[in-house]
């Protein structure tokens, strides 16, 4: 730091570098130097999992770049045309202009197919990246104060991202995506009271109409990306403002952040990583075909292909819709289409469960303090269990969403898979929760063992009197610190319900629930007490072994 100040003062005395003049021009107008003061040499900690968010940022950037290119050639119109392009199997077939222009991009525009494929692959990677990034944040407790808002920004990006993807792959108006749009019509129609009206407004009349491609186009290229860009900027500003979280380690505390400066290390590393992500996606787009709309043909409401699947991120909602029994209530001249409407409502609830978790955890545990050191997932068994249970639900529904493919690939009956998913929807998350919690507690016991008795070296030593022992290597100070740095909060106590005079004290039932949940979080069944200094001294000051 001191060297850079010296150089700047020395250059100030001499003639000014042109770059310096530009920077000073900007400084006088927008306060560039004040911005640089806190950000140019901002410290970022290093860990492989911190690049997951970068994957999302860069794939989003690639989506914008390639998306702008695609708008130059795509016609968001449902006017009917007869195809006479180079793809022989479809010559003479009637199709919408949207489909025809996508064919044009794929077969006649040089590089058009590549950009289309980069765009689609980036979308899949963007959403996969967001989910994995969210899991990293979740399992390490990075969502805790002061980062709860940023958790919500990120979650909203994921939620909108799914619809951004859906409106995007519906634009070519091919047989597969049109089938997805037809599903949307059915889902909208299931809405009580207003469903029929909403459907008429969405499709400009009866399905499919001539409106949905232009409407989806406006939503896909303007409305949703605009909101997402805003959220993304806010997300990044907060990352800079809060400074990044870090894992416990030597020299790392709640009051500092240890790492390397933004300029030049992370400008080079993160800037370079953008090109790495882009390069990998370009290579995938060169060798792996995605969404070959020409094999599906244009959309016709009376035709369908087998094995119809949405893009993977919509798969769990597809699972909900496939395994739901077809309940319908007909009364007083009206129909309540529960078989479609319940999945439609459960879909946001599944996602919202993970969105509100930080607030629930903070309420249950009463933890209102700031956290910048990350948790090791094993040290928070209830949170980790909940996260794994959520993922289990997600993947169970994903299997349900592809029940036909599972049936054909694994020679199972569709009934078996559907019923397994129905039962699994309720049972598997609970099993996953308990299994994960137990595994976490086992790992905590192992950590305790390691702290007190050292690392097993695998070396067997024979003592003079003939006994064989395994040599344990004591951990160094950093390892000891890392394994014992996590606080172990105590559950909330509501105190005795009867005071010393035998008078019953009224306890709010909400408080009771909270205390119960808190016991579940931090009670004796949810954490293994860390070794104390006394225990450690007692064992290590003895004569070596135990």
């Amino acid at each position, binding site marked *: 730091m001191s060297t850079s100040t010296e150089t700047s003062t020395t250059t100030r005395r001499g003639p000014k570098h042109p770059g310096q003049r530009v920077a000073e021009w900007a400084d006088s107008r927008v306060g560039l130097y004040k911005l640089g003061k806190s950000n140019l040499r901002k410290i970022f900690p290093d860990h492989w999992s911190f690049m997951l968010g970068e994957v999302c940022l860069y794939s989003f950037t690639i989506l914008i770049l390639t998306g702008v290119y695609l708008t130059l050639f795509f016609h968001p119109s449902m006017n009917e045309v007869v195809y006479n392009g180079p793809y022989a199997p479809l010559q003479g077939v009637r199709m919408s202009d949207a489909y025809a222009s996508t064919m044009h991009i794929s077969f006649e525009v040089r590089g058009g197919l590549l950009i289309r494929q980069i765009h689609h692959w980036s979308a899949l990677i963007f959403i996969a990246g967001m989910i994995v990034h969210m899991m990293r944040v979740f399992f390490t407790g990075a969502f805790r104060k002061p980062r709860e808002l940023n958790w919500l920004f990120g979650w909203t990006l994921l939620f909108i991202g799914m619809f951004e993807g859906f409106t995007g792959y519906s634009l070519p108006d091919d047989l597969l995506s049109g089938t997805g749009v037809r599903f949307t019509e059915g889902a909208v129609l299931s809405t009580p009271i207003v*469903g*029929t009206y909403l459907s*008429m407004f969405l499709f400009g009349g*009866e399905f*499919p109409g001539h409106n949905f491609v232009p409407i989806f186009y406006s939503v896909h290229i303007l409305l949703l990306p605009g909101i997402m860009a805003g959220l993304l900027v806010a997300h990044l500003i907060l990352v800079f403002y809060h400074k990044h979280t870090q894992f416990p380690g030597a020299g790392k505390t709640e009051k500092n*952040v240890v790492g390397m400066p933004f300029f030049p290390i992370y400008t080079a590393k993160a800037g370079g990583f953008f090109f*790495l992500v*882009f390069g990998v996606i370009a290579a995938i787009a060169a060798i792996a075909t995605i969404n070959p709309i020409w094999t599906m043909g244009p959309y016709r409401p009376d035709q369908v292909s087998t094995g119809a699947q949405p893009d993977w991120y919509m798969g769990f909602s597809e699972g909900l819709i496939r395994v739901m029994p077809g309940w319908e209530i007909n009364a007083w001249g009206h129909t309540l289409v529960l078989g479609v409407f319940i999945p439609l409502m459960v879909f946001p609830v599944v996602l919202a469960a993970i969105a509100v978790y930080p607030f629930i955890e903070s309420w249950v545990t009463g933890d209102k303090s700031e956290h910048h050191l990350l948790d090791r997932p094993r040290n928070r068994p209830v949170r980790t269990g909940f996260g794994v249970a959520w993922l289990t639900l997600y993947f169970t529904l994903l299997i349900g969403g592809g029940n036909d493919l599972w049936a054909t690939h694994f020679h199972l009956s569709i009934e078996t898979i559907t019923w397994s998913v129905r039962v699994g929807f309720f049972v598997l998350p609970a099993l996953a929760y308990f299994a994960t919690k137990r595994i976490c507690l086992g790992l905590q016991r192992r950590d305790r063992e390691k702290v007190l008795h050292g690392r097993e070296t695998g070396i067997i030593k024979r003592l003079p009197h003939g006994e064989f022992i395994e040599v344990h290597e004591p951990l160094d100070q950093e390892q000891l610190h890392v394994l014992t740095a996590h606080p172990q909060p105590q559950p909330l106590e509501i105190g005795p319900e009867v005071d010393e005079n035998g008078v019953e004290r009224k306890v709010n039932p909400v408080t009771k629930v909270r205390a119960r949940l808190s016991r579940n979080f931090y009670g004796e069944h949810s954490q293994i007490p860390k070794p104390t200094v006394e225990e450690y001294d007692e064992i290590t000051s003895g004569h070596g072994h135990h």
Partner: protein
Amino acid sequence: MSETGSHNDMAEPEEHLPATHGAHGAEAAVPGDPFANPGHPEHEYRRQDIDEKAAKHSERVVAGLFTLSMLGTLAFITSFVIFPVDKYVYIFPLGHVSALNFSLGISLAVALLGIGTGAVHWARTLMSDEEMPDDRHQADADDELRANIEAQWKQGAKESAFGRRKLVRTTMLGALTLVPLSAVVILRDLGPMPQDKLRHTAWAKGKALINPNTNKPLRPEDIPVGSLTFAQPEGLNEEDEDFQQQIAKAALMVVRLKPEDIKDKKELDWSHQGIVAFSKICTHVGCPVSLYEQQTHHVLCPCHQSTFDLSDGARVIFGPAGHRLPQLRISVNGEGNLVAMSDFEVPVGPAFWERG
């Protein structure tokens, strides 16, 4: 870390109390606390930091990667110029692929990965890798500032008289609540009112069942037992402006069963010599059901696997559909063609609130 180091540790573990391990920055540790943070470790230099030869090597690697990227871009431009858009080549193991798409993608990947790997290698080997701590600051303002800002807020609120002049407040809230209504109203013309649109299809009494492949009327003898045929109403043309909307409701499947196999009495009454016509649009969310199993007379929707029994009034036997596929009453006209006896009696396709 080194072999010998850990060997020494193991030879006499008794002598290695943890306090002696915090070699660097041990002063940060709380004396007597074996679990205290040992403090920031001393920086270890890389080979490139002390050996100019190694640094020069890294420099050449980085420059080489950047040069590779330039070659990638040149290859991209060359491919763009030399490969026609419709040239297909065989590339193992991909098979026949577009030469242009493959060469553009791979050269673009090389151009991008060259920059990316070059920059990352530069950062990792030639830029300083010394970790340094930076202090964090809580977001909270101190009490004095908070009190100050709250006082300013109260002053402003008082000056606005927002709390005192209730009439201003109430009417303003009323105005702000009403004004978004115009945004809702103005969306009205996105589409027409539903009226009874979802209740009617293009079928009507006397309309012939047209085979969409031949555009000729279907005759009973065209449909052997066990076969599934699709049909659309007479007078509906692909060229029609509203063809997609009409076919989305009118799509029909026609099956011939043995009359004795038909279990449902109404189905039998509405059939002609065992030929039955059902809506092809799934009653779940509207996919065309089309997978017919002739032995069991089951028809399956490929989207969500709702299964209907065509020999029993298209009853739902599996899957998420909520009700039967509507049946179209058919007969033959004087020319021996299959015709509809009326429109569908109930709405086709997915259920909706007004369906009843």
